[in-house]
C-alpha cells in the first residue's frame, strides 16, 4: 500500500482517499466545516488547508488525495495561522450566542474556535444580521449563525434528491435558505440539522429541550422499517430526547428519515397503557394474567407476533405457545399489505422500505408466516412493540383477545386484557434487516410504569401457580 507522512507519522492509504480521512486513521484531526464524507467536495470553508512539501500554497486536505511519499504538515506555522484566520473570519459575523444556542456542546464551530481560534477579537464593524426563517415542521433556520458551508444545499441535491436549499444573493450577503423561503419538503429534513456544523439549522423538536452535554447516548437500531438504520438514542433521566443516525456504510450510510428519527415518540404517548388492564380498567398483574389464561384456556388460539419484536422475543413466544397454548398457531403481522418478506420493497430511492417494522425478515427466518385474520380461531394473543399496525389487525380479529406489549388509546380497543410490555428503546435484542444483516437493539430507557419485558410476562403467564413474579426483574430479555 502507498504511504504518506502526516505530521511525522507514516500512514498507509488507499488510492483516492483524501488527507482528512488518511489523517483520521492515525488520530490526527484536521479541522473542517464544509467537508462531509457523504457529500461532494467543494473546499469552501478553507479550514482544512494544510502544508504539503513541494507545494508553494497551502492545500485543502478535503480536496487533496493522499499521494505516495507526500509529506503533510497539519500543524505547521502556516497551517496554524490559516486555521486561526479562518476561525476569525467565520466568527466576525457569527453571533456567539452559544449560551442560548441548542448546538452548543456539539458544535464544530464552537469546538474549533476553542481549539484553533484566537481568544481575541479584532472585529469592530457592525455584524451582518438576517431574519430567522421557519422551514416547516422539522427545521428552524437561524441564518445569523450560518457559516455558509453549503452542506445542507449539497445534502438536498445529492442525497435527498430535492433542490430545496439554495444560496441566494452573493458575497458577504449570501443567504442560505429554501427557494422563496418555502417549507422543506423532503422526508429526510432532520439530516439538515445533523450535518449543520453550527446552530444554524436546528431540530424544532429538540430546541430548548435539553443541553446536549446532559444527554446520554445509546447506540441502537431504528425500528421504523426493514432497513434498520443505525442510530443513537440520546436520553437523560429515563427520557429520550432525540435520535440521530450513526454511520453504517452498508445500511444507512450517514442518514435516516424523519419517520424513523421521530419514531421514538410513540413510546412516550401519554395514552400508552403502562398498567395491566382488564376490560378497560387497571388491575394488578395476577388478575390480568388470570384473565389472559381464562381467555385462551383450551381455546383454538391465533398468536399474532408483531414484526417489531426481536429475534429473542419471537423465539420465546414460539416456545411459550408450544408449551402453554397447545392448540395455537403462531403467525406474524406488522404492516398492512406486507405479509411476507417478498412483499417488502424499497419505498423511495434513499432508505425507506415498505415494511414499517424492523424485524419482518427475522420473523420469516424463524419460520413464521404472515397472517392478519383470526377466522377459524376462538381466541387471539397479539404481541406488539407498538410499531406493528395493531389497529388494522384488530379490525378483522373478532374473537376475545389478549394484548402483550405496547398499546395506546388508539390500539387498545378489542382486547379483553392488555399486559403492558417494552418498546424498542426499552429492550435489548436482535433484529434482521431486509438484507439479512443482524443488528442489535440496545436498551436506552426502562419500560414505563408497570410495563415488563416480554420474557417476564411470558414467564409469569406460563407459571400456572399464578405466583407473583419477582418485582425486581429487569426488562432485559
Amino acid at each position, binding site marked *: 500500500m502507498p504511504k504518506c507522512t502526516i505530521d511525522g507519522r507514516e500512514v498507509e492509504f488507499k488510492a483516492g482517499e483524501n488527507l482528512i480521512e488518511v489523517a483520521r486513521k492515525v488520530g490526527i484531526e484536521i479541522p473542517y466545516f464544509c467537508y462531509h464524507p457523504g457529500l461532494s467536495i467543494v473546499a469552501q470553508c478553507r479550514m482544512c488547508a494544510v502544508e504539503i512539501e513541494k507545494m508553494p500554497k497551502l492545500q485543502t486536505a478535503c480536496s487533496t488525495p493522499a499521494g505516495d511519499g507526500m509529506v503533510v504538515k497539519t500543524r505547521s506555522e502556516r497551517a496554524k495561522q490559516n486555521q486561526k484566520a479562518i476561525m476569525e473570519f467565520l466568527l466576525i*459575523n457569527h453571533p456567539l450566542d452559544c449560551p442560548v444556542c441548542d448546538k452548543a456542546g456539539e458544535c464544530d464551530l464552537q469546538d474549533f474556535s476553542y481549539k484553533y481560534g484566537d481568544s481575541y477579537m479584532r472585529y469592530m464593524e457592525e455584524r451582518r444580521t438576517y431574519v430567522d426563517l421557519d422551514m416547516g415542521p422539522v427545521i428552524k433556520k437561524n441564518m445569523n449563525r450560518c457559516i455558509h458551508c453549503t452542506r445542507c444545499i449539497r445534502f438536498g441535491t445529492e442525497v435527498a434528491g430535492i433542490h430545496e436549499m439554495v444560496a441566494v444573493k452573493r458575497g*458577504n450577503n449570501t443567504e442560505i435558505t429554501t427557494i422563496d423561503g418555502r417549507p422543506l419538503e423532503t422526508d429526510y429534513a432532520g439530516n439538515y440539522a445533523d450535518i449543520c456544523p453550527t446552530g444554524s439549522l436546528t431540530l424544532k423538536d429538540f430546541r430548548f429541550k435539553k443541553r446536549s452535554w446532559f444527554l446520554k447516548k445509546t447506540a441502537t437500531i431504528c425500528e421504523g422499517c426493514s432497513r434498520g438504520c443505525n442510530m443513537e438514542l440520546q436520553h437523560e433521566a429515563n427520557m429520550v430526547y432525540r435520535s440521530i443516525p450513526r454511520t453504517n456504510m452498508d445500511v444507512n450510510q450517514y442518514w435516516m428519515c424523519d419517520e424513523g428519527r421521530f419514531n421514538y415518540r410513540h413510546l412516550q404517548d401519554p395514552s400508552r397503557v403502562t398498567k395491566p388492564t382488564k376490560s378497560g380498567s387497571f388491575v394488578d398483574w395476577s388478575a390480568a394474567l388470570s384473565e389472559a389464561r381464562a381467555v385462551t384456556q383450551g381455546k383454538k388460539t391465533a398468536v399474532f407476533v408483531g414484526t417489531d419484536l426481536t429475534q429473542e422475543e419471537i423465539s420465546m413466544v414460539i416456545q411459550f405457545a408450544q408449551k402453554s397454548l397447545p392448540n395455537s398457531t403462531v403467525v406474524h403481522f406488522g404492516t398492512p399489505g406486507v405479509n411476507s418478506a417478498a412483499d417488502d420493497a424499497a419505498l423511495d430511492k434513499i432508505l425507506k422500505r415498505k415494511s414499517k417494522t424492523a424485524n419482518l425478515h427475522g420473523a420469516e427466518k424463524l419460520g413464521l408466516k404472515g397472517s392478519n385474520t383470526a377466522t377459524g380461531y376462538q381466541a387471539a394473543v397479539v404481541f406488539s412493540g407498538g410499531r406493528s399496525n395493531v389497529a388494522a389487525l384488530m379490525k378483522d380479529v373478532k374473537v376475545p383477545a389478549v394484548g402483550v406489549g405496547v398499546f395506546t388509546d388508539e390500539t387498545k380497543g378489542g382486547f379483553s386484557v392488555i399486559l403492558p410490555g417494552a418498546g424498542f428503546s426499552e429492550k435489548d435484542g436482535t433484529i434482521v434487516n431486509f438484507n439479512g444483516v443482524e443488528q442489535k437493539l440496545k436498551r436506552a430507557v426502562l419500560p414505563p410504569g408497570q410495563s415488563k419485558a416480554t420474557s417476564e410476562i411470558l414467564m409469569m403467564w406460563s407459571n400456572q401457580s399464578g405466583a407473583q413474579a419477582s418485582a425486581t426483574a429487569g426488562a432485559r430479555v
Partner: protein
Amino acid sequence: MSETLYIQHFKDSSRGLDYYLKQMEGYTALKKAFKMTPDDIINEMKKSNVRGRGGAGFPTGMKWGFIPKQASKPKYLVCNADESEPGTFKDRDLMRYTPHLLIEGMVIGGFAIGAHVGYIYIRGEYTREAKLLDEAIDEAYAKGYLGKNIQGSGFDFDLTVHRGAGAYICGEETGLLNSLEGKRGEPRVKPPFPAQAGAFGGPTIVNNVETLTNVPFIINKGGDWFAKLGKLEKSGGTRLVSISGHVKKPGVYEINAGSMTIRQLIYDVAGGILDDRPLKAVIPGGSSAPVLTADEIDVIYDIEPLMKVGSMMGSAALMVVNDSYPIVRLIKRITKFYAHESCGQCTPCREGCRWMEDILHRIEHGHGKEQDLALLLDITDNIAGKTLCALGDAAAGPVASFVRKFRPDFEALIRGGRHAQVHH
C-alpha cells in the same frame, strides 16, 4: 510603433464579412489550418509564445496541449468575453470591430483541440457586442465558415453566444463554466482543471477574446513571426492596452509586447497626465493589480518585468491616477468592488473582503484607528493565496500594496480626520 494587428481595423466599416475577406485575409488561416494536423497547430501556438490575454498570462499553446486526445465526453472551446476586470475594455473593441477574427480563431482552436461546439461567454452589459457577434456568426454560417463540414473540410463547428448576467466572478474560468451550464456562477475546486473536466464535464479550453483573435495571425504567418513581434523572450505578439484614468488620451492602444515602459505608455502614447498634474499612482493590470507609485513606472510593460516589481500585467489595463483623487477613497472603491463581486463561497474572501471594505470606509471618513493599517495587512495576508479562486488575491493584493506604498495618506486620515491632505 511598428506592425499592429488590430488597431487599424477598429472602425465600424471593418465589421462585415466582406471587409474581413478582402482586407484582413479573412478565413485564409482557417483553410491553411485544415491542411495541418491538430498537433501542428498546437506546436505553432507554442512557438508563437502567445500568453493568455485575460489576465493570468498562461502560455496558450501549452494550455491547448493539456486537452486529452481521447475523451469519453465532448470537448468544448469557450471564449471568455466576460471582460469584467475594471479598467479593461479591449475585448469590446475586438468583438465590435473584428468579430470574424474571433470566429475564425475559434474554429481553428476547435479544430486543434477536437471540439465541435464553441461558446462565447460575453459580459451581460455588452448587449450591442452580443448582437454584433450574433450577426457575424449568422454571416459565417451562411457562408459556410461555421456549421457542418466547414469549407468542405469535413470538420463541424457550432458557435453560440451566451450572455452573462453581470457578475465579475463569471470571468473566472470555472465560474464562467458553471454559469454557462446554468448554475450559480461560483468557481469550482481545481483540480480537475477545465482541460480534464470543464463545461458539462467535457475537456474544455477557456481562452480570452484577444488570445483567440491572435490565432489566425499565428497560423497565417507562423508562430516564429508572431513570437518576434514581442520584444521579450517569453512573450509574443502585440498587446492591446486599455489606458484609462487621468491621462489626456485614454483608449485602447496596441503595442508590441514588451516594447515600452509604463512611462512611455503614459506620456508618449496616452498624451501625458490630465491637467499636467503630478502622477500619483498607476494600476498596471486592471484593478486587481498591486499599485505602482510614480517612481516605479520605468518598468517594461509586460508580464515578467511587472511580476519582478511585485505587480502584474493582468489584462493590460493601465489605470493612471494623478494627485487630484484621494488615494484612500480609490482603494476603498476598489475593495468595495471586490467585496460586492465576491461569490460568497469561500470563507476568507466572503468575510475578509467586506471587512477590509468596512475598515477602509472608516478610515476614509475619518474614523480610522492607528491599528487599522496593521489589521488590514493582516487580513490581506489571511486572504491572499488561501482562497478557492483568484478573486481573493485580486482583492487582497491592491489593499496590501496601497497600504504599504501610500501609508502617509492613510495615516494622515487616521490622525487628522477626513479633511487631512497629504503633500509629498
